[in-house]
């Protein structure tokens, strides 16, 4: 009797496998679940540049990607994308023009929440220039919580395996959520633990949270400079592991509480 069970059992197993594959969450499912915590952030930056006796002031409106890390309204943005003076990219440009000094100030910030992109007033809380992160607080989040990323189950990075980030299209395309595929290409220990990455990445993806194939967060896209690099070397876009981001988040919390 036993051998006769084989075709039927095999068929059942294969059908179950096929069904399980069909039920596996699609990229679209991942995007729909994760996108509410990925928010456009708009603001005005005041740039003051001094070179010798000449100085220049520019006020510029712009936008970047933010990720709500905490329902209390703490939003992660890229230090580089928000004009952070200590960001590796800004430092690289300043180095190329000897004597140039640049200071920046975020004079207003708004976080666009929900499908209707409701503008919520926000303020820059603190910059973590070492990790190329900045933290922005939604000012009324204590009374009106903001959908936040679930950090309870961190994911796993395996070199060569597919990862994905959740980003958003620009304002002209209604900030539609977008999936960005990438893969880890190596592990770096100095200047700090990082993953090098490859993919069709854009500077606008800086600050995006990266997930593993099971949609568990693994880190954030940042720029970093190598130790003792040539002066002309540009910083690289890398994946900052989630535990480092969490430490930065913990350091930002008390400052964010004051801002609320």
């Amino acid at each position, binding site marked *: 009797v036993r051998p006769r069970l084989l075709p039927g059992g095999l068929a059942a197993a*294969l059908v179950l496998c096929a069904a399980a594959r069909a039920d596996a969450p699609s990229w679209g499912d991942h995007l729909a679940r994760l996108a509410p915590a990925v928010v456009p952030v708009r603001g005005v930056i005041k740039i003051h540049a001094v070179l010798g006796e000449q100085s220049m002031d520019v006020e*510029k409106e712009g936008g970047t990607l933010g990720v709500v890390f905490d329902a209390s309204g703490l939003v992660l943005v890229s230090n580089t994308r928000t004009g952070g003076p200590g960001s590796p990219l800004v430092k690289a440009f300043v180095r190329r023009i000897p004597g140039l000094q640049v200071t920046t100030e975020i004079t207003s910030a708004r976080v666009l929440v929900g499908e209707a992109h409701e503008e919520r007033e926000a303020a820059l809380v603190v910059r973590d220039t070492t990790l190329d992160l900045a933290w922005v607080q939604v000012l009324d989040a204590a009374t009106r919580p903001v959908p936040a990323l679930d950090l309870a189950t961190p994911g796993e990075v395996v070199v060569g395996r597919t990862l994905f980030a959740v980003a958003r299209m620009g304002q002209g*395309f209604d900030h539609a959520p977008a999936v960005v595929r990438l893969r880890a290409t190596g592990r770096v220990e100095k200047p700090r633990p990082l993953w090098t990455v490859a993919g069709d990445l854009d500077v606008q993806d800086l600050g995006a949270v990266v997930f593993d194939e099971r949609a568990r967060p693994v880190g954030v896209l940042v720029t970093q400079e190598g130790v003792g690099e040539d002066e002309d070397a540009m910083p690289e876009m890398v994946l900052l592991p989630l535990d480092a981001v969490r430490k930065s988040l913990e350091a930002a919390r008390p400052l964010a509480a004051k801002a609320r």
Partner: protein
Amino acid sequence: MRFLPMLAVAFALGLAFPGGRARGEEEPAAALLARVAPAVVSVHGTLEQRWSGDGSAQEKEVAFDGVGAVVDPGGIVLLRNATVGGSSPEIEAWRKQNDIESYSATPTSLVVLFGNDPTEHAAAVLAQDSRLDLAFLQLLGGRDKPFAYVDLTKGAAPRVGQELLGVRRSGRGFDFAPIVETLYVSSRVEKPRALWALRGDFEAAGLPVFARDGAPVGVVAELQAPADSATGDDRPDEARFAVPLDAVLKSLEAARKKVPEVLAKAAEAKAAAPKPAPAAPAPGPAPEGEPKPPEGTR
């Protein structure tokens, strides 16, 4: 009754459609390349550019190289509108930087090459859809057999995250060898219109892209957000998209209606054409320091 488990096995293994590729079944990239490449053509010609700004008017002739896909057995070629003189993000940026008030570009000669065959096939612009950055050419002159073409009516809608393939051609220096590259659907955009945002290696605007089962899913376009969505950023939003096939097919239908008119005009022009005269000297370059529009784009 024993047949049922075996049928289930067959379905689970994707073997239930012997003799043909079932929808959803992968077509190897090399097979797609071999199947699609005959319909992917090189387009060459000359553009007459005219522009004015700051009270002065200028004109210039430039050669252009492009790539297109035959999408109709009667010889309709789909390509990027900017290739045959339509506006593009590069042109708009150039106009903005140089205060150019008006700009136009008209193709004055247009030929299509199949594969690495050096035979030049004359063509004429059939229609230009600046909204989708697509244009359609009509191949002039008959052929003893129908053109190999990509049938856009047998397509499918892609999904976010889905991996796609595109077939383009390398340049003259590499004998127009066909190349297959990958890309994927990054986002579904609804505004200003329904589009699929793309990322990946394949960047050839104006060409169709295919699902892994070989079905076309859209046509690549580099599109800018409307000017009224200006955000204060340095440049308007711009991205690479797959234009959904229903929009492309509408545009193709409108182009098809113009075929008799374009063929009649071409026949008239041929009949009225004088015997070839010695070639005029090529126009000289614009003076140094004066703005020149970006030249022909692939």
